[in-house]
């Protein structure tokens, strides 16, 4: 972690509080969210900011997540900056609207406290909720800890609202593990952070009645394809701009905002790829194995949509063996992250064996020891086409 370039305060915050803190500094015009475990404290904390007059946001408390996402979509179409937050079944209930928000090119930013999907009902962390919606035109950024979640919110607002992008974004943080865990978060100055996101400058707004636009028409066989092609282009631009905006953010925080974080990877022979909070635990595992002289490293993707295939390929191409850890299934198919990593490596002349691991479903704990065992297994060259499970009882 390099030095902060502006004044900052360290605060003990839960991940949810860190998200609410970012929202307080962003000062969205409209927030609409329906409470769901483990996201609820985001709504509670922000509602208190509103109640105390700390922010001037119009807070809407709809009767469902479907309405919550509809409210923020309507608000964004009206030129406002609008935000929401949800998890699991709540995100699933929003699914009907998610592609409409992106299709309408409305840069809503929403935090997701990752939680397993029913059934069986489970309130704990896995990535099945956000992975299920990965192809609906939303930018997706995964956070390792509360600090990253906080910073990603600012990056997401700028990226989503960029005139060349105009796509909604979701920021993921691991439910309970991060959402409810208290950690030390470095919070930067209010004015600096607000200035970083600035005010939203919408190109189209329903409230600009002097220039009336029809938003969300019916497009049939003759135009739907063209409109969707634009969305794909916006994703391409988002990928490029993520780095540019990240550089601007790093002017404030002194940190780097790459597509991914590499940890002792460059001189490694065996690497694992893992998202979010488990990456932190995995770093400790890497350090311990390095002490034993084992050449292991880690790659933690942050930007998942758009997916940085070329850059990830270049970061992994020197490895002899790779393990990919997914916290969700893609039923009947390769696990989501694993599938992307395999894809990214396809263009290499040399084929690198990649082993798929699934872990942590429904909040099943993942221990450093288990990750070390994964590394050791990979170091022994144990790779198969079978998807393996970590911490599962046979």
């Amino acid at each position, binding site marked *: *972690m390099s030095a902060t370039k502006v004044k900052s305060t*360290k605060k*003990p915050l839960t991940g949810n509080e860190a998200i609410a803190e970012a929202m307080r500094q962003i000062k969205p015009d409209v927030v609409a969210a329906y409470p769901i475990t*483990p996201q609820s404290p985001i709504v509670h904390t922000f509602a208190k900011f509103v109640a105390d007059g700390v922010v001037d946001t119009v807070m809407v408390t709809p009767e469902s997540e479907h309405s919550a996402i509809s409210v923020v979509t309507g608000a964004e179409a009206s030129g406002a900056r609008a935000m929401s937050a949800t998890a699991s079944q709540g995100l699933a209930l929003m699914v009907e609207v998610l592609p409409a928000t992106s299709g309408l090119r409305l840069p809503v930013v929403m935090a997701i406290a990752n939680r397993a999907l029913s059934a069986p009902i489970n*309130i*704990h962390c896995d990535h099945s909720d956000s992975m299920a919606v990965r192809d609906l035109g939303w930018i997706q950024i995964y956070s390792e*800890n509360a600090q990253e979640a906080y910073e990603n919110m600012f990056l997401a607002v700028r990226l989503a609202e960029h005139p060349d992008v105009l796509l909604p974004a979701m920021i993921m943080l*691991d439910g*309970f*593990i*991060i959402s*409810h*865990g*208290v*950690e*030390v978060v470095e919070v930067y100055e209010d004015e600096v952070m607000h200035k970083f996101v600035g005010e939203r400058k919408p190109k189209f707004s329903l409230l600009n009645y002097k220039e009336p636009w029809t938003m969300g028409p019916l497009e049939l066989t003759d135009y739907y394809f063209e409109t969707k092609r634009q969305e794909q282009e916006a994703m391409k631009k988002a990928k490029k701009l993520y780095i540019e905006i990240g550089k601007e953010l790093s002017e404030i925080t002194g940190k780097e905002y790459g597509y991914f974080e590499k940890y002792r990877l460059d001189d490694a022979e065996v690497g694992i790829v893992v998202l979010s*909070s*488990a990456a*932190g*635990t995995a*770093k*400790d595992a890497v350090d311990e194995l390095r002490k034993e002289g084992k050449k292991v490293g880690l790659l933690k993707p942050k930007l998942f949509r758009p997916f940085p295939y070329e850059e990830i390929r270049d970061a992994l191409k020197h490895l002899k063996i790779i393990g990919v850890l997914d916290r969700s299934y893609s039923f009947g198919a390769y696990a989501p992250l694993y599938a992307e990593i395999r894809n990214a490596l396809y263009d290499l002349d040399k084929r690198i064996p990649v082993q798929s691991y699934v872990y942590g479903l429904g909040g099943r*704990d*993942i*221990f*450093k020891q288990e990750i070390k065992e994964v590394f050791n297994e990979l170091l022994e060259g144990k790779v198969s086409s079978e998807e393996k499970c970590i911490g599962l009882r046979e």
Partner: protein
Amino acid sequence: MKEVFEVRIHGRAGQGAKSGGQILALAAFKEGKTIQAFPEYGSERRGAPTVAYTRISEKEIRSHEPIVNPDVVIVLDDTFLYTIPVTKGLSDEGVLIVNTVKSPEEVRRITKFKGKIFTVDASGISINNVGRDAPNVPSLGVLVKAYPFVKLESIELAIKEIFEKKLSKEKTEANIKALREAYKEARS
């Protein structure tokens, strides 16, 4: 001294295991340490057993695994001594703190734990001072005595910061009094 100090608190939902862990974390944070405080969540309703963890370190904490080998275990309800393996993962160098009227010897007999044992009537102290059974704060007083990783004054500052938002000044003071009393009265 160790680099990372880990505490596990067993309580019943409503006894304040989670907030106890957070007070401890805040106190350590006030001393410039890095902290993590995280409860284990089921779908607990008032009365159900709960667990909360606090991890304190002099350097950055990256791990997000649950605490496997705590340095200290705090038991807020002595019936757990019979029903839950409260000393699981606790080494002989570790410390067991129990809110009970029982003696440390009696606790040792029940748990067969070989390390240091501290007992205190945290519930009694809490009822006397605060007027309700909130054993979490007094238990932290014992913790400071048993394992001086965090200063008593820091715990007091943390209590002030957290409690004064929700409670009256008198109640906050009463809690601090309970903390100090437990610090003095703890038996080992």
